[in-house]
């Protein structure tokens, strides 16, 4: 399983773009990169997933370089409501009969201020 490393915390102000980078040096060929958001007293929520290059949805963008050893979650124009913990998860595609131990790191606490 690919181990992930993220900054423990980040601070930002409303309206700014926030980029959170996750390192996953031993990512496997079949691994996807998935990001989750967690608010206090709630379960994590899926944000975005990618395999390579760039993925964009209505919430965020995910940039993955060619070597796939890192990925960057980009949140455009953050607001106070984006204050949360963000987790990077690297997991192998489903292997028949093998199971899938999806493990999370400690995440990045993003604090957005006025």
């Amino acid at each position: 399983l690919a181990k992930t490393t993220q900054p423990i915390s980040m601070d930002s102000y409303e309206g700014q773009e926030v980029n959170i980078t996750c390192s996953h040096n031993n990512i496997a060929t079949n691994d996807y990169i998935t990001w989750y958001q967690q608010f206090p007293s709630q379960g994590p929520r899926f944000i975005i997933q990618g395999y390579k290059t760039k993925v964009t949805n209505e919430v965020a963008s995910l940039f993955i370089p060619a070597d796939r050893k890192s990925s960057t979650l980009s949140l455009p124009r953050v607001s106070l409501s984006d204050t949360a913990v963000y987790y990077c998860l690297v997991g192998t595609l489903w292997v028949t009969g093998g199971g899938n131990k999806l493990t999370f790191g400690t995440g990045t606490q993003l604090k957005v201020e006025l």
Partner: protein
Amino acid sequence: IAGITQAPTSQILAAGRRMTLRCTQDMRHNAMYWYRQDLGLGLRLIHYSNTAGTTGKGEVPDGYSVSRANTDDFPLTLASAVPSQTSVYFCASSDSSGAGANVLTFGAGSRLTVL
């Protein structure tokens, strides 16, 4: 219900007692997971299940057991609770096909305090 339902929402338990945390999903997902979350330690996988009838051990399985009698239910049992099992427990599920396997849907969590 829509998504994942966990029960109880919170519970205070005496050490040595047996406790079962319930988890039910209505999405017909093949895979289900139990995580515990402790301050400063993120989410740690306890047990998982590929499909009904099969289970596997995660990072921290000791002191916990699970069963998967059908697709929808995945209960977590603490046979004899200890204070170190005080935590917030999250159940999750995912579609086991392709990239969807990594897209987890989480329940709201069960806060357990063992005294």
